[in-house]
Each structure stands twice: as structure tokens, then as C-alpha cells.
């Protein structure tokens, strides 16, 4: 038995909520994919570590 009673509103808005959930999941996948591609393709330029000769 569930702890809280399912409200009628939840049932009515299930389709809408599922849609929003899928869009958000797709957004996460896209950010993850873009980050991976940018890093592996060398698209992101990291600051070079400052060496001893730089006085750092």
C-alpha cells in the first residue's frame, strides 16, 4: 500500500509530466554527449599549468 493516496490530478497530468520528464532526460543526455565530444575532440582549451620557470 502506498504511503500517500494518488490524487486524480496526478492521473490526469500523467501524459504531460511524462513528456516533460523525457525532455529533461534528453537535455541531460545532450549536455553529457556535447561535453564528451568537446573534451575528446580538443574543443575545450585548458589553461596550461604554470611551471617553476614561470615563477609559479
Amino acid at each position: 500500500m502506498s504511503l500517500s493516496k494518488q490524487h486524480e490530478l496526478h492521473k490526469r497530468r500523467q501524459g504531460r509530466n511524462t513528456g516533460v520528464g523525457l525532455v529533461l532526460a534528453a537535455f541531460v543526455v545532450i549536455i553529457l554527449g556535447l561535453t564528451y565530444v568537446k573534451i575528446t575532440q580538443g574543443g575545450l582549451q585548458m589553461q596550461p599549468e604554470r611551471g617553476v620557470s614561470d615563477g609559479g
Partner: protein
Amino acid sequence: MSDASLHSDAYENEAQFGDYFALLKPRVMTLVVFTAFVGLLAAPVAVHPFVGFCAVLFIAVGGGASGALNMWYDSDIDAVMKRTARRPIPAGKVTRDEALAIGLTLSTFAVVFLGLATNWVAAGLLAFTIFFYVVIYTMWLKRLTPQNIVIGGAAGAFPPMIGWAAATGDISTASVLMFCLTFLWTPPHFWALALFVRMDYDNATVPMLTVTHGRRATRRHILVYTVLLAAFAIGLAFTQVGGPIYLVTALVLNALFLKGAVQIARRDEDTAEADSYKAERSFFKLSLLYLFAHFGAILVDAGLDRAGVWG
């Protein structure tokens, strides 16, 4: 009416996910996706497939967002026209404020993420496209001039240019000519439809060329734009994106399109009514094939070029 029935009516009209999606004008989005994809692949710079996919997705989302903003602003005229009366706002499914919020949020999202995924030239072009469609076309000129179709066509013509910029980071002769292809194609395509389909733009007080200048002038306008279109379409064959397949496609289709436009210009209303607008209908059908075949040919030539077929 009881409270219960009042509530059940309200629930029945409650927006579903599909209603919010309909705000993005999915049909228009298919043309945006296709032409942006061609612009991206025809560019001489290779893009990682996932970045390319994201670029086309963000361009489509930006196009969809401008559709939502158009529905927000035009909800008054959408409600009085039969073709648009079932859109989410006039149908009472989505409120104007919701459409505005979705339009602004998705516009910002699409521009920022296109910039981060590709470059800021492409993002700037996408931002300009949204501004042009929403402010210049929808808010300012649509209800003011019968040349509204020409201006609206310009907004729909940017995607291949944005796709190209996403790959190269610049604007070139080839990408400008791809823009011109859709830009000059839209007026003859739409005016041919306006000749044989009675539209209720009058009720919405939107000036249409067929009404403000008459059907005779519309026929002449179709011919003028078709001649201009042919020059630009064939010119595109001699740029970076042109190839043998595109040249043959452009020569054949522009000859047929010009023939159709001359036929339309020579006809009067009595002749057209006598054969149920046969020439106008076949010109409209040809216009659908025309745009698809031109961009398709660019895609084929780009594929053959990458495969090294032309040496």
C-alpha cells in the same frame, strides 16, 4: 450546470504535452530541419556527427520557439480564421502567457546552446532569425503590407545559412544563395495556393496580395519572383555547394517552373475557373518538389564529393 460538470469541462480542455508541442509549429519545423541539415553537410568543414545533430536540433528548437511567439502575438487573428482556429491558444488549451513564456525560454535556450555547441556566428544568425520572424514580420509588417509573404519567407530561409555557419563559422556566397533559394521560392509557392484556395485573411484584416492588388497582379508577381528565383537557383550551381547533380536538377526544374509561371501569368480568372485552376494547382505541386529536389541535390552532391566520386 453543476459544479461537477463545470470542472469536467475544464479538465477536458486542459492542455496535454502535444498542445505545447503544437505551439512550435512542427510542420514548419520539418522544412527548418531539412534545410539546416543540408546547409551543415554541404559546408566544406566536417563537423562531429553528435555536434551536427545538436546544431540541427537547436536550430529547430529556435524555429519552434519563434512559432510559439508568433502564436502568442497572433492569437487574435488565429481565432477568426478557419485554418488556425484550432491552434492551442484560440482552442483554449494554452494561455497566451504560457505561449510567451515557452517562446522566450526556448529562444534563449536554443541561441545559447547553439553558440556553446558550435560558434557565436551561427548563434547570432539564429537570434536574428527569431527577432526577424517575431518582431519584423509578426509584430510589424504582417498586418501592414501585402508583401508580408515575401518578408515571412525571409525568416524561413535562414536555416541553411545557420547550418552552414554552424560548420564553418562564417557567411559565404554559397550560404547566401541557399538563403535566396527559399526566400524567392516562398512567394510564388504561397501566391499560387492563394489563387485556388479561398483564404479568410480578410476577416483577420491581414492584407493579402490577391485581395489588395487583385488576382491579375498576383499572377504577374508569381512570374517576376520565378524569374528571379531561376537566376539565383542556377547561380548556386557555380558555388562551392554546386555539382553535376544540382546543376541538372536546377536546369530541369527551373525550366518547368518558369513554364508554369508563364502559363499562370497568361491566364485570366475565367479560364482558370473553367478548368478548376488546373495550372495553378500543378504549379503549387511542382513548387513542393522544387524546393525538396534542390536541397536534396545539394545533399547528394556533397555526399558524392566526400565519397570522392568526382575525383
